[in-house]
């Protein structure tokens, strides 16, 4: 049977990906340029017995998805810049309470209200450092409509597998552009569900680390009863200030992601085998970079592209290895150097890092990147 194809907008694909992954709850507060995610969920969720709720603001929306997730549902919220800022307190809550949830954040100009309809990539640091305290961070930066669908499915898998919030962060261009998409059949993409407790309700502890770094999570409202708090907590979920335990728990919560980077980090290498100049790019900017690499190759310049698909955890090992091989990195991004700083950190001075930054609401075009390639080759 021929697969279903459609000409879809990125945001619509994100919503469809969430449904494919088994999402049954959306809590949100609409904001440009992410609104179409909420629109699709509001139409589709009632059809499958799911729930859509428009909350009073972004903080309430984040709280609603945490609550719904604790009942056992796969949950989604969608927002953009200012909304992501508002959600931060509760993103931290989801981190410490180890509650799976997926946040689609479409990157527009900032800070504050910034440029609501203009593209940007300036939320990538907010995805890791927006909420205070040490915590794990997973952030995916897809570059096409098809990939936005697939990476949203993967975001749900990672959220459920590691009991943590996961962010999907397309820039406005990827979220609003339309491309042909081929829908995967049910079962074609892996769908991971959270691990349910194997002990009787009376013995259940929500943070029982004897089951490993990711303890099984029971559903609220079932026979299993447990306590949830934003305070540092013991195995039973009740607050604790026991120093050694708190230290070990903080470390475990970060370790459950950091120790599994090979399972989480994905990237694409293009024309890198003999490259002397490596462009490191993500989202729509990586498409400009690919165009520029092809043009450079036509002119006999050995350029290649390292495309970041998983921004957090950052592909540290891969960038460090590349730094030993190439003469220079070029890091085009629609912010003033957020990825560039990470690449410099990983390169440890072994290769020069040249940024191309744009925050005027216009995309970085292939010509700009090609010019830089010629300059640094």
């Amino acid at each position, binding site marked *: 049977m021929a697969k279903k194809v459609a*000409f879809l907008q990125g945001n619509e694909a994100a919503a469809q990906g969430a449904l494919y992954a088994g999402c049954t709850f959306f809590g949100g507060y609409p904001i440009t340029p992410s609104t179409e995610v909420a629109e699709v969920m509001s139409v589709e969720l009632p059809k499958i017995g799911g729930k859509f709720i428009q909350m009073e603001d972004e903080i309430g929306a984040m709280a609603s998805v945490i609550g719904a997730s604790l009942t056992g549902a796969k949950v989604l919220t969608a927002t953009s810049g200012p909304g992501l800022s508002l959600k931060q307190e509760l993103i931290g809550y989801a981190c410490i309470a180890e509650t799976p949830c997926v946040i689609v954040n479409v990157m527009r100009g900032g800070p504050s209200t910034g440029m609501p309809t203009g593209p940007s990539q300036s939320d990538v640091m907010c995805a890791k450092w927006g909420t205070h305290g040490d915590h794990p961070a997973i952030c995916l930066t897809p570059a096409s409509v098809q990939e936005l669908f697939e990476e949203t499915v993967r975001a749900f898998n990672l959220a459920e597998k590691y009991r943590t919030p996961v962010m999907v962060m397309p820039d406005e*261009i990827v979220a609003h*552009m*339309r491309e*042909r998409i081929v829908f995967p059949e049910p079962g074609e993409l892996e769908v991971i569900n959270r691990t349910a407790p194997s002990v009787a309700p009376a013995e259940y502890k929500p943070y029982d680390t004897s089951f490993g770094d990711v303890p099984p999570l029971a559903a609220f409202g079932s026979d299993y009863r447990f306590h949830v708090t934003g305070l540092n907590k013991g195995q039973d979920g009740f607050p604790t200030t026991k120093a050694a335990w708190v230290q070990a728990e903080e470390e475990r919560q970060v370790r459950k992601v950091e120790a599994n980077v090979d399972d989480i980090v994905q990237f694409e290498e293009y024309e890198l085998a003999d490259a002397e100049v490596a462009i490191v790019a993500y989202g*729509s900017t990586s498409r*400009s970079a*690919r165009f520029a690499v*092809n043009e450079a190759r036509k002119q006999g310049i050995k350029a290649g592209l390292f495309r970041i698909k998983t921004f957090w955890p950052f592909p540290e090992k891969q960038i460090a290895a590349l730094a030993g091989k190439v003469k220079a990195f070029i890091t085009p991004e629609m912010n003033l150097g957020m990825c560039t700083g990470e690449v410099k950190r990983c390169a440890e001075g072994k290769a020069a890092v040249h940024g191309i930054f744009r925050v005027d609401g216009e*995309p970085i075009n292939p010509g700009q990147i090609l010019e830089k390639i010629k300059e640094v080759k």
Partner: protein
Amino acid sequence: MSQRYEIRFSGAGGQGLILAGVIMAEAASIYDGKQAVQSQSYGPEARGGASKSEVIVSDTMIDYPKATVVDALLALTQEAADKYSHDLKEGGVLLIDSDLVKNVPKGNFNTVAFPIINTAKNEVGREIVANIVALGAMVALTGVVTKEGAEKAVLARVPEAFMELNKKAFQMGYEKAMAARA
């Protein structure tokens, strides 16, 4: 056609130009089996303000989704003609509304002008289908998608009650552009 072909629909917010771009891209990618990407740029206001919708069509994978050197430009307002014609390539197609764009962008273009909005209003019967008149004209002038594919794409986007109206708008735009070019 293995090269990129870049089309830009421009005018004011609310004129339906994003939809015109979407339909053109659907015609290419769903009905004609080519690769296509549609993107858009608009201000924060729902109506008014310069607005553009870009479509890239190619036989091979499309990387950069925005226009680099525009092959064909539609401008439905003077503001759009002034703002968005700077990267139209030499010999490119320039379609303008002859009532609304009085200062024709200067350059070596294949300029085609006819009263697009007036055609929708007075000959088709509803101003709201001006975008479909313009689409029919762009299909005729660019030849980048088939007329059949484009017509199917139009009808797939339109509610049952408005099929005939849109069919007429598309056909009228197609014919007027052919006549104006000749």
